[in-house]
């Protein structure tokens, strides 16, 4: 993946499972997905519900 990815509202990170032609392969499941990121204007480790079953993991001091 590229370096220095700075994204904002409206942009999507997607994990997909494709065939050699770029079409989705049926029957493949995606389980736990973890994004490691620096959040702008968010106190690190503050935790929280980001909606859509996404959660910001709280830090040890939260």
């Amino acid at each position: 993946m590229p370096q220095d990815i700075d994204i904002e509202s409206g942009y999507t990170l997607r994990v997909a499972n494709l065939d050699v032609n770029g079409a989705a392969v049926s029957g493949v499941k995606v389980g736990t997905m973890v994004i490691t990121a620096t959040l702008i204007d968010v106190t690190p480790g503050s935790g929280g519900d980001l909606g859509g079953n996404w959660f910001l993991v709280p830090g040890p001091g939260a």
Partner: protein
Amino acid sequence: MADDAIVNTTVVTGSKDYTLTGVQEMLVKAVRASIDGSGAAGQYIPTLQMLAPNGTVMWSAELASPVAAGVSVDMNWFPGAGGGGATVTPSLGSITQSWYSTSPGANFNFNTRAAVVSNFPANTSFTKLTSTSHLLITFNGDFTPGGTPDTVTCYMTLDAAIMTAFSANISVVGGGGTCQMARTVKGIAAGVHTVGLNVASFNNLNCTLLSSNSCDMEIVEYEATTTS
């Protein structure tokens, strides 16, 4: 500023998206995903994509080689990694993939003491997923001998190098012969390799490898729990 972890543990069939909302902004450092391929309809390529607000795919980071149907992988994407930035993470004791030969449309005739490359298997390409794994390669095949006495030998090859051989001593004509071999191999680099089968008749008799319907070769790639 310290990094955070954004997590979604739900299991979904198909793709999984994280779309930023509101005033969110973030610098992405890495992405991990557990992929369950046990129900996959075919081989698949785990891919991380970034989509613009209108759905345009801005970039894709794909695993260098497809994962076989039925195999599950734990994917990690981060900048600077080779092969599109994704790797299969070895898990000791796990089977990474299985490979099965396909048969050519015709049998293969041979009649020389010097081993010759047969037409088996029809699919000679095997993509090894990790450099740490071991391979268990097996062959079971029938042939028709050209006469008696003779010794027919089959040689399994990987990248044209002979891995193992089995000789069948023929003392009775009228029946057939069988070669059965198995071999474990370690120290083979990840990537595309060529598998094959060579055959020979010690007495230069007209033999036939029944490769169209009575041969099979299988490869199991696994992360051995020992390096010995």
